[in-house]
């Protein structure tokens, strides 16, 4: 099967001369239809920069992002707009990613801007309502403001917004990190369900190996802007090939060593 998303030798450097920071250094990954790829790394690993570039919110220093055989950065603004319908994003902070001044319905419908033939008026309302129900909220919620919702509910709204253009790729940048564990679990389940129903591919950026294990098919481990290890999630997590991956796994909190006295 041909890759939906192909990231080739992507680099992004900040600054000039000696003070240059390589946020991304020659990173290549690929993602097929219906696949959930987890990009895992600690702060400064470059995983968020990767997400922003894949979404076209930032320009790479070098390298290519190929989406459906089209290089994103070769596209004209008009074609980019068209292409954007195919990929959407869910952000980390459920409080910062929804405009507090807009009603939920308007927020969710915003990406329809990309599609001149998108339904208007009542049809649009129905479409948004249906989507809200899909993500576990009610159709009537579209007349409310974001501040009337909890963090988990907001993240559902964000997912609904990302889905309205029926994208083929969803990029989730630490989409569950700001949530309590119990809520996080629900959102992860939602993403899994969407994948199963619509065959959406997901690029899931996270620092949490537990989460990767939970939903990802494949995993890419990043450190200091470089790709350390990639492979099927099961394989990488159970038999890490690289020492960094092993360290990451060892540092993960566990429940099997309980209390310091028992540890000694």
């Amino acid at each position: 099967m041909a890759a939906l998303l192909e990231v080739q030798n992507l680099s992004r450097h900040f600054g000039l001369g000696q003070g240059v920071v390589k946020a991304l250094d020659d990173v290549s990954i690929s993602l097929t239809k219906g696949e959930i790829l987890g990009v895992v790394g600690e702060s400064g690993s470059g995983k968020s920069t990767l997400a922003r570039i894949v979404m076209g919110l930032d320009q790479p220093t070098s390298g290519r992002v190929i989406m459906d055989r089209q290089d994103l950065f070769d596209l004209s603004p008009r074609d980019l707009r068209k292409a954007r319908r195919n990929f959407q994003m869910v952000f980390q902070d459920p409080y910062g990613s929804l405009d507090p001044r807009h009603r939920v319905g308007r927020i969710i419908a915003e990406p329809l801007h990309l599609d001149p033939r998108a339904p208007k008026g009542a049809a649009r309302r129905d479409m948004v309502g249906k989507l809200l129900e899909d993500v576990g909220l009610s159709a009537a919620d579209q007349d409310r403001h974001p501040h009337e919702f909890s963090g988990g509910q907001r993240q559902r709204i964000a997912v609904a917004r990302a889905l309205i253009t029926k994208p083929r790729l969803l990029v989730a940048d630490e989409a569950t990190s700001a949530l309590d564990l119990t809520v996080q679990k629900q959102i992860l389940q939602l993403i899994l369900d969407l994948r199963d129903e619509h065959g959406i591919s997901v690029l899931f950026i996270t620092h949490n190996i537990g989460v990767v294990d939970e939903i990802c098919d494949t995993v890419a481990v990043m450190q200091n802007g470089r790709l350390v290890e990639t492979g099927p999630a099961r394989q990488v997590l159970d038999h890490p090939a690289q020492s960094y991956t092993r360290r990451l796994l060892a540092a993960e909190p566990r429940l099997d060593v309980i209390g310091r006295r028992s540890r000694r």
Partner: protein
Amino acid sequence: MTRLPKSLIIGAIITAIMVGAALLSRVWTPADPTGMNIVARLKPPGAAGLFGTDQIGRDVLSIIMAGAWTSLGIAVVATVIGGGIGTLLGVTAAAKGGRLERLVMSFNGVLFAFPPILSAILLGALLGPGALTSIIAIGIFMVPVFARVTRAAAIQIWARDYINAARMAGKGDARITMEHVLPNISAQIIVQLAIQTGLGILSEAGLSFLGMGVSPPTPSWGRMLSESQTFLDAAPHLVLAPGLAIAITVLGLNLLGDGLRDLTDPRRGQNG
């Protein structure tokens, strides 16, 4: 349910009274603000009007009321124009960044470096004293203030993820500014408008005091102060009345601004 901030209420009342007086003066004042009565000159407050009479026997209360129209009018127009241009520059700088932003900010720096009064006098010299000069001189100094405030606020908004979401939705800078940035910084803009109008009134008074304001007989609080200087000893009410009018109006606008800030402060009642 939620109570309004006290400063908002007091500020709104004072501002309403002053605006009311200014509007009222267009149709009615206790006496003709330009009608002199030389026999009844320099009368203290009391029988000859609530605030007494001035050096040519005009009713001070009436001049103060009519002066409110002048002061508020000039300050409001200057603030709206200066604030409009400044806001436009500020949000554009925030949206475009790069060279344009640097240009706007260095323009700001230049304007900031000059003492406003001096430049206003310079403008007065260039254009001749008058209402238009006052408006331009005061408005010019609103531009950098608003540009700075709105740029800072807009930059914060631009860092929000809902802006990224809007960009993901294919919206351009101008559209994002209109739909997301401006509505979300409108509270700060309104607060600044109130506060800057107050400063505008102070500036207008200063200009008039130096003889660079509106021409007589258009009443002006600053010119009243300037004219009453020589009567400081003989008729202190002539110094007190316009000064108090200025101070109370500015106080009202500042309180209004503070109250609006409290009202729109996200920290307020957010946990409820």
